[in-house]
């Protein structure tokens, strides 16, 4: 469908520097572009502007102290960061987790997936549409909906963005009275609004024109670069860790995994919209089936050395909104980990950018980068 773009082929290419402070790089990314005319000849992303040395921190503070710091990694869906780390340590030190805690964990990680996808949709349309146009209205719609979810987080844990909801062996807070009514109301509202946004964008010829056939990522290349999550599923690979390796009673919920066909920006958009609907289904099922019982299997933490792990290594991965988020822990028996490797989904998803950008227009960078949905706390760690 994309007819050849016959732009003026000037011999000398100009080097454009899409710097770290740029309105549409989702955070701090610098792309060095070699352009001939309007077409991109070569793109070199330069990351590391948000490197906070989280893995070095993992080796100095104990497990209990490291957990709240992990919320700051993928700051759009904080509970999924904790979820991975908690699962890894529990697998290593085989700490049991009561069923009620597992359900609460699933409920809140799906809610944070919804919030993260809403932020993605808002900023994606804002980049495409510019600050003075249709993009802003969708951006504000999405953030209006996200407020409902953040209110639930605030009432449950006291904090909106960095909840520190989980601890080793369970969850730190129990369900507050009146939560099921609020969550049900939020889910119904969200379901209706998501259809509305999809209506607004899918029928929008300008939107389709800017996303269909742009940034096509084939299945093989996606697998080779190690992409995961909606980026991989957009290219047609049906692979979701919640179904492949069910963890924390995900096998008790039934939900489908949306898959795209030809891996362009539009398919990744469709996959994420469909994923939001599936998350709402999971949230509803988790809410009805919430079993009674304790919310933690360990006494609450008294001292920083409360959690110890036997020497050995473990790798536990979960499905974060951006893909496979895994924690590889090598421990030598002390309450501080010897080495924590965080397998960040955005890091590998972003490594596809140079391959994807070749041959596109300058205006397409924004669309492609938005569809990869990188979060730079995740990329630079």
């Amino acid at each position, binding site marked *: 469908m994309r007819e050849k773009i016959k732009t003026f082929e000037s011999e000398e290419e100009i080097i454009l520097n899409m710097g770290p402070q740029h309105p549409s790089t989702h955070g701090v990314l610098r792309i060095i572009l070699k352009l001939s005319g309007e077409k991109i000849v070569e793109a070199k992303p330069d990351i590391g502007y948000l490197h906070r040395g989280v893995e070095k921190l993992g080796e100095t503070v104990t497990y209990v102290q490291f957990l709240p710091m992990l919320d700051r990694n993928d700051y759009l869906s904080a509970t999924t960061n904790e979820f991975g780390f908690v699962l890894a340590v529990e697998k290593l030190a085989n700490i049991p987790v009561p069923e009620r805690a597992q359900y609460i964990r699933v409920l809140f990680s799906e809610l944070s997936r919804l919030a993260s996808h809403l932020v993605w949709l808002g900023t994606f349309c804002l980049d495409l549409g510019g600050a003075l146009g249709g993009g802003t209205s969708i951006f504000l719609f999405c953030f209006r909906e996200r407020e409902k979810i953040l209110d639930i987080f605030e009432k449950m844990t006291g904090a909106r963005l960095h909840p520190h909801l989980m601890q080793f062996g369970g969850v730190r807070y129990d369900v507050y009275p009146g939560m099921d009514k609020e969550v049900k109301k939020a889910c119904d509202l969200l379901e209706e609004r998501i259809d509305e946004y999809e209506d607004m964008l899918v029928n929008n010829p300008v939107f389709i024109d800017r996303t269909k056939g742009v940034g096509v990522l084939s299945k093989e290349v996606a697998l080779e670069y190690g992409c995961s999550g909606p980026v991989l599923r957009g290219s047609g690979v049906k692979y979701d860790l919640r179904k492949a390796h069910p963890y924390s009673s995900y096998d008790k919920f039934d939900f489908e995994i949306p898959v795209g066909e030809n891996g362009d920006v539009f398919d990744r958009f469709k996959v994420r919209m469909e994923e939001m609907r599936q998350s709402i289904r999971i949230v509803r099922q988790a809410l009805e089936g919430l079993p009674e019982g304790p919310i933690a299997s360990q006494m609450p933490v008294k001292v920083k050395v409360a959690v110890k792990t036997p020497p050995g290594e473990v*790798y536990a*991965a979960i499905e974060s909104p951006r893909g496979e988020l895994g924690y590889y822990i090598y421990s030598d028996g002390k309450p501080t980990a010897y080495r924590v490797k965080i*397998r960040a989904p955005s890091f590998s998803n972003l490594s596809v950018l140079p391959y994807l950008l070749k041959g596109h227009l300058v205006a397409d960078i924004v669309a492609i980068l938005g569809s990869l949905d990188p979060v730079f706390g995740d990329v630079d760690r």
Partner: protein
Amino acid sequence: MKKEKLKEELKLEETKDGTLIFQKGEFYHVMEKVRENFPYLSFITAIHFPKDKGFEVVYAFRNIEESEIILLKTKIKEGEKLSSLYKYYKGADWMEREIYDLFGIEFENHPDLRRIVLPEDWEGHPLRKDYPINRAPLKYDYRKKPLLRREI
């Protein structure tokens, strides 16, 4: 499953947590075999052991259809080189650059082995155990050091 089959063929021993250990010498032989039945490279990382002055480099591969994961480990001494996986998996490019940046392990025939996360003129590799933690934060002073012209 595929992991047991692989273990017999290559006669690798296994740690109690299920990671296969292979020798640096037979790197290509092992990676060739792994390439067939584990097409997805999940991550590469390294662990620094100052006691026996070496590193352990850990690879993680996945098989999407059978949704199975294996971890492979190898030991290398300080200053030894390791060959790069870029030939088999293009994703290894950034992962190996990050390990070079934070650990200082060089990878042979890697397309462009540069620091990926830290600035070019950074001395030392932070994730090594002997890297001092409580060092005063680096204060950038224009007078002392001219602004670095970075080649692209």
